[in-house]
């Protein structure tokens, strides 16, 4: 297997590989959203015939694929509302659609739980930021909700209370994945520990003469370790930064966009890993057949190799190829398989922290 671009993104996110979109339509498995050179959104789809190369479809026309699921059609409409491509933006769109119930009741409940948990942590982080600012400005110690102290904290900073609160809310919303352990648990740290477990499990899994599955296991393990190291370093750095509330507020005033982008570095580095870990964890540790199936699915979620992009097809050609692939699978057994894949994708949504 060739080396993938993710390997070279040790410290900075690679926007070219895009963001994984949790589509449920089987033909869209592993689709990635990115902005192309003209700044337009496009989807990178794997070759539906299973061969090399990727299909690049402008997001605006992706809904023309006739077999698109209701969930994906709605998600597609939500993605079109985004101004920029980011893992956070895609995640929030997907969560919104899941909350409406388009991926079924299980995914809806999971999204509700995830939204609740995130909201709690955002509030905690916001309060922490306001408290730290207050303490730095010589306030009378931390407050529970940041309501009274900010006035003291704003002194000398030229920010009114409302703006300060908005800044804290925004920084907390973008930095919630980073967290401030032990007081505020980190979503990213949780993902990192799942990635480490996955890499350990795959290291012990290889070498059983399973051919292609062995190769995938080695590759996924390598990528997992690289991601773990890179994202781990970034996470530590950003936890230190988050602890320094006054510096963050200062940067927010002068370079808001840059700060919000930087707060998402870990999101970029960890993009797609919760899905891969969930797929692996769903297979019982002693069920080799299940684990092989999970590995094949995980391989589809890895970023495509750089060289395959040279063989990319665009727009209408891509939609036609998808339609052709659909027409070619006239055997009812293939269609039953696709229906089962759709069912499994929806079930997986229920397993993930949406």
């Amino acid at each position, binding site marked *: 297997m060739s080396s993938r671009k993710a390997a070279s993104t040790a410290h900075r996110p690679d926007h070219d590989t895009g963001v994984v979109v949790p589509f449920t339509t089987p033909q869209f498995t592993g689709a990635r959203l990115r902005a192309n050179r003209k700044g337009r959104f496009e989807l990178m789809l794997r070759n539906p015939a299973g061969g090399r190369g990727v299909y690049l479809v402008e997001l605006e026309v992706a809904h023309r694929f006739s077999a698109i699921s209701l969930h994906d*059609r709605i998600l597609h409409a939500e993605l079109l509302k985004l101004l920029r491509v980011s893992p956070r933006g895609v995640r929030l769109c997907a969560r919104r659609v899941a909350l409406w119930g388009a991926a079924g009741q299980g995914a809806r409940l999971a999204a509700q739980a995830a939204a609740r948990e995130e909201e709690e942590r955002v509030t905690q982080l916001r309060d922490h930021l306001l408290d730290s600012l207050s303490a730095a400005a010589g306030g009378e110690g931390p407050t529970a909700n940041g309501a009274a102290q900010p006035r003291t904290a704003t002194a000398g900073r030229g920010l009114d209370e409302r703006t300060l609160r908005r800044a804290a809310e925004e920084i907390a919303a973008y930095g919630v994945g980073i967290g401030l352990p032990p007081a505020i648990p980190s979503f990213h740290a949780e993902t990192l520990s799942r990635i480490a477990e996955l890499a350990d499990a795959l290291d012990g899994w290889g070498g059983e003469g399973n051919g292609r599955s062995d190769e995938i296991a080695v590759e996924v393990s390598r990528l997992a370790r690289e991601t773990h190291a890179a994202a781990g370093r970034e996470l530590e750095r950003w936890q230190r930064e988050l602890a320094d509330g006054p510096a963050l507020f200062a940067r927010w005033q002068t370079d808001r966009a840059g700060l919000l982008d930087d707060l998402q570095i870990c999101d970029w580095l960890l993009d797609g890993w919760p899905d891969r870990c969930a797929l692996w964890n769903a297979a019982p540790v*002693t069920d080799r057949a299940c684990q092989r199936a999970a590995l094949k699915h995980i391989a589809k979620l890895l970023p495509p190799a750089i060289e395959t992009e040279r063989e990319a097809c665009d727009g209408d050609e891509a939609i036609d190829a998808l339609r052709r692939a659909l027409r070619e699978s006239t055997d009812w057994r293939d269609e039953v398989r696709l229906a089962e894949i759709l069912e499994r994708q929806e079930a997986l949504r229920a397993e993930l922290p949406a």
Partner: protein
Amino acid sequence: MTNRQALLAQLTKALAATDDAKFRAVVAVIDRQPRHHVLELLIAPHRPRLARLKPPRPLTFHRVVTLPLEAALVPAEDWVPGSYRIPRSHLAPLHSAMRERLDPELVDWVDRMLAGKTTADAGVERAVGRRLWPAAAEVLDGLLATGRKSLGEAAVSARLAAHLLAIGERLVETFWQLPPQSILCFSGEERRAAIELLKDAAQRGTESLALVADLLGARCQSPLAILEPLLAGEISMSPRDKRECADRVAEACLEDLGGEIAAALADEETTPQAAAELVLRVMSGLESLSDVATKLDIDRHAVRQLTRRTAELAEQVTRRVLKQIKQSFDDDTDGVPLYNYEKAARAVTKIRLVAPKLVIASKLDDLLRCAIERYTSAFDAFLARRRERGASTALEEPAIMERLRIIELLFGSPVAVSLWERHSGRRAAI
């Protein structure tokens, strides 16, 4: 009932009520006990759950030697003498016979290798099996030739076990390689692996071949899927023997399927899911049969009858589900949440996909076409009633979205998507 039995029954019942995480924890605690064999009684009634969860268990001589036999194991009460299955109750005498007669050095080596390992250590399991399984097969072959009586009732299973142990490594590898879900038809890699296994089995004779064919067939939606690989030219056995073996598989399978369809038709309580799975299994089997029809002596009348009865069941279930869901679909009180019907709707999806292969395809298509109209009109009417009541008609409302989901599951994504696009004012799909 003695006190011990009563306590056991109580604990078994309590274990049944625990969630999966607690169940795994209890199994782990039992496995850590020095006298875990006694405590195994507690989890014995939960074998189906163990098979589903597959928690890592300590690797032992017994577990490794049983691995190639697993596909053939059945609970003692389900065992039919003469079938290609081994009752669990025969395992103990087989284990002791093998352990007693195996080379003590090999047994020591096995015990040393397995110490502290669990069933998650696949590499160790395979490495030990590679030496242990052929040796165990030899022991059983020897016993069957000379000391058959010492095995008592288990002698009949010893023969089957010897066949499986002799090809243990290939058998275990192949079963690990097959997809986890039941297979609709063998393709590519799976077909090649199945043929290799059948080739190895054929070297021990027709019984071994028929046994392995039966076990592979049990992993498929229909055992008839095994006919094509079985009749493939690569198996070194006379064409007559192969054909005889395939005829037996086909005949038994058609008879079983006919019985299952008749039972499902007679039982109004059959769930749509179970009925749809059965319809798929029959159709998958009939497809496999038609692939090799010219090479077999099959009762064509029986095949036609089975197809007709299957179509009858498909139609009956589709009508029942469409009627049942429609009642809740029209219900504005949200009495029964529609998501409770998702499984039934998915069953109709599967039946719809297989419909073109059934003789009544057009009948079923008409039925579904009429239903689409009824359901979409009902959806429009539901929105109109909400509007009148002043309730929100936003498509994101759970009561509205779950109706769209049901339409998607029953009639396919394009129907639901176009309905959503019409009501949301989005551009329709081209």
